[in-house]
């Protein structure tokens, strides 16, 4: 378990980085390596952020002495005069206390009844402190041991030690999975979701825009079969299809989601302003509609016609009149600009015609979804054929609003009477293509920005999956606790991901040099310290390992979970 020394500390500062003289060939250490500086009192954990070639005198570097000197001499010379310095970003330190074999240890233990935990680095180790690569033990010390809430997300790049994330911490705040297209975001998301389902302390609502998470799928690039979550967690996962009779991957979902007209508010429509190309006058019209019809405004508006009737006036002249049930008639009656109302009526036709919006939704499917989530089931809402942005925006927003209302209510109940009311089950809403809902323009209007900002108090958080993090509203980005980031090519995206983190400069380079397919950088509040890892593969072995963990659980646990 004892890792070999790779160098010793030669300088640096807390502000910049530690400088470590490398004593092994540089090929054995990579940028991003997790290293440990070991003093008698403390362990300092850090991340290699740069490797620098240097020489005691530049002339030693300039001269190609290997051609002039025999190998033994050249090696000895280079060993002493040419060297590589590591730049190590200090992340955490851990009090060790005295040697457990020493008498002082007992006193120290009494003074520290709770074993110290890693804390941010507040001091520097002395010069010449030996530096080694982190071993499995160190990684476990910092990130935790695999098992239970600690879920293996990947492996260290040099030695393949497993690295876990704390799933409970992960869901306490909103999180993000980023990476350019093709960097394996959706596989990583599957892994994470599988882990969360497996751990089973959280409910998931996956807004599955492309219907790829529920049932088995074929990978777009490799043409390999990709196992869906429903396949593996049949009992706990509900695949919900949007709209009556919708087939998802040619299979029947567990149930269908239909929305009642009454569930769509005028705000939901305002949210679609751009999508529907609404005029500036639309809000006024919507306000009037709501005022006249209450929550049934949409259905009422839909039922209005655009007819005119001919009527003879007192003078016997045929006069065209708006049909009493027409938009114009309503507008006139309520002092609304007719043209504006008619324009809105035209534009909303797309909404009126959505088949999943019905007057009497079968079985109140929206409630079903909410109930299932509150019950600890996981819902994968597949949009099936309704994969326009309009559908996504509208349904997501309606759903999230309902969820918010429900969880606020549950939480308030629990808070006011914790002994009787159950603690609400944490819920994670998984958003694909999150920038569509969380861009600067919309963020203030959708429920998601609010969820991201405030809902963690109410046990609801977001898991944002996106390839363009720079498109997401800064305020939302800065709320993200855990960020799991694959390779990003765009400088703005990189900056967005690193917003609000320490050591951005060092991390930026690391992010741009990740292997596009294999590697991700773990960042943020939910991660003890930034660390690049080789991501876990979503394959048969993954499932075997995951299910293996389940088998190890006691029957009581399983029973408790099933009954829950």
């Amino acid at each position: 378990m004892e890792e070999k020394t790779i160098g010793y500390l030669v300088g640096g500062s807390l502000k910049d980085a530690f400088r470590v003289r490398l004593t092994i060939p540089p090929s054995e250490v990579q940028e991003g390596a997790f290293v440990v500086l070991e003093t008698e009192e403390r362990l300092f954990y850090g991340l290699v952020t740069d490797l620098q070639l240097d020489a005691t005198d530049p002339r030693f570097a300039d001269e190609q002495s290997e051609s002039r000197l025999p190998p033994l001499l050249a090696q000895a010379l280079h060993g002493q005069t040419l060297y590589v310095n590591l730049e190590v970003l200090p992340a955490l330190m851990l009090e060790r206390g005295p040697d457990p074999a020493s008498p002082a240890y007992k006193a120290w233990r009494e003074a520290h009844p709770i074993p110290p935990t890693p804390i941010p680095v507040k001091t520097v180790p002395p010069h010449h402190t030996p530096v080694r690569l982190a071993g499995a033990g160190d990684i476990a010390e910092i990130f935790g041991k695999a098992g239970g809430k600690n879920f293996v997300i990947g492996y260290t790049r040099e030695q393949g030690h497993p690295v876990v994330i704390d799933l409970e911490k992960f869901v306490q705040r909103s999180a993000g999975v980023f990476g350019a297209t093709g960097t394996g975001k959706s596989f990583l998301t599957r892994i994470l979701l599988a882990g969360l389902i497996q751990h089973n302390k959280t409910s998931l609502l996956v807004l599955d825009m492309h219907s790829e998470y529920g049932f088995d799928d074929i990978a777009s690039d490799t043409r390999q079969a990709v196992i869906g979550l429903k396949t593996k967690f049949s009992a706990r996962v509900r695949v919900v299809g949007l709209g009556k009779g919708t087939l998802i991957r040619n299979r029947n979902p567990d149930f269908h989601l239909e929305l009642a007209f009454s569930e769509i508010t005028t705000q939901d429509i305002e949210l679609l302003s751009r999508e529907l190309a609404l005029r500036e006058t639309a809000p006024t019209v919507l306000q009037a509609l709501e005022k006249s019809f209450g929550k049934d405004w949409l259905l009422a508006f839909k039922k209005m016609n655009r007819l005119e009737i001919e009527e003879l006036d007192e003078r016997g002249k045929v006069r065209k009149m708006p049909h009493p049930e027409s938009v114009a008639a309503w507008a006139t009656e309520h002092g609304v600009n007719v043209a504006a109302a008619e324009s809105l009526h035209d534009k909303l036709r797309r909404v009126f015609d959505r088949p999943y919006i019905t007057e009497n939704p079968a079985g109140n499917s929206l409630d079903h979804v909410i109930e299932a989530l509150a019950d600890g089931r996981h819902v994968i809402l597949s949009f099936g054929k309704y994969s326009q942005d309009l559908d996504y925006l509208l349904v997501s927003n309606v759903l999230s609003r309902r969820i918010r209302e429900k969880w606020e209510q549950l939480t308030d109940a629990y808070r006011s009477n914790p002994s009787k009311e159950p603690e609400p089950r944490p819920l994670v809403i998984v958003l694909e293509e999150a920038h569509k809902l969380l861009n600067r323009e919309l963020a203030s209007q959708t429920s998601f920005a609010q969820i991201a900002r405030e809902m963690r108090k109410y046990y609801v958080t977001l898991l944002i999956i996106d390839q363009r993090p720079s498109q997401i509203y800064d305020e939302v980005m800065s709320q993200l606790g855990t960020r799991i980031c694959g390779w990003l090519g765009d400088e703005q995206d990189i900056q967005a991901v690193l917003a609000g983190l320490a050591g951005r400069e060092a991390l930026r380079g690391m992010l741009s040099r990740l292997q596009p397919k294999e590697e991700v950088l773990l960042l943020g509040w939910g991660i003890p310290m930034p660390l690049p890892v080789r991501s876990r593969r979503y394959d048969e072995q993954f499932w075997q390992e995951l299910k293996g963990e389940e088998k190890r659980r006691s029957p009581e646990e399983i029973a408790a979970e099933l009954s829950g």
Partner: protein
Amino acid sequence: MTTPLEVGRLLRANTNGFVAGCRVSKLGAPAFGALVRVPLPSGEEIYGLIYNIQIADDGLVRQLVTSENVSEEVMRDNRERRIVPVEMSVLSIGYAQNGRLYYLLPPRPPLSLDVIYLCDAAEVRRFTSGNFGYFRHILRAANNLPMAELLAAHLLQAAPTHADQQDWLKKAIQEIIVLLRDDYSNLMAVLNALREVIF
């Protein structure tokens, strides 16, 4: 043990080093870079490296070199019978006292006519088995002696006395590089000289 090889007697000395004289005919024994020792009557033993061997001239020799040819007999006479000594300059690099070696300058120099012995292999090994602290004296004297050549000669002579020659050489070179790494020109001079020692 074989009888110690006497290389000469002391002509003059100071704490930094000393000059030994010997007949030309004895010149076969000492070599540039050789480790020598001078046992003192007080029991200490001073160690040094020969860094210069000087053949002095005098009026007669100067006269002889101007003649057309010098006969074999005259040559031998001058080398073996005449009293013009060969002078060997020795750099003090340590001493032994009560069986302990110090890589320090001796507390006092040897005295006139003290006998200077060539160290045998075992003595060389014993002296050079420490931490190379004595290199310090060579570097310190860099302006007064051919440092690069002296180091190379010393390594060449001392390495074979060690069981693991290569290992000893490696460590010695390592030490030299550490001591000289801030002095590019001197270090390169030494390394270039060591090229002759190491292949």
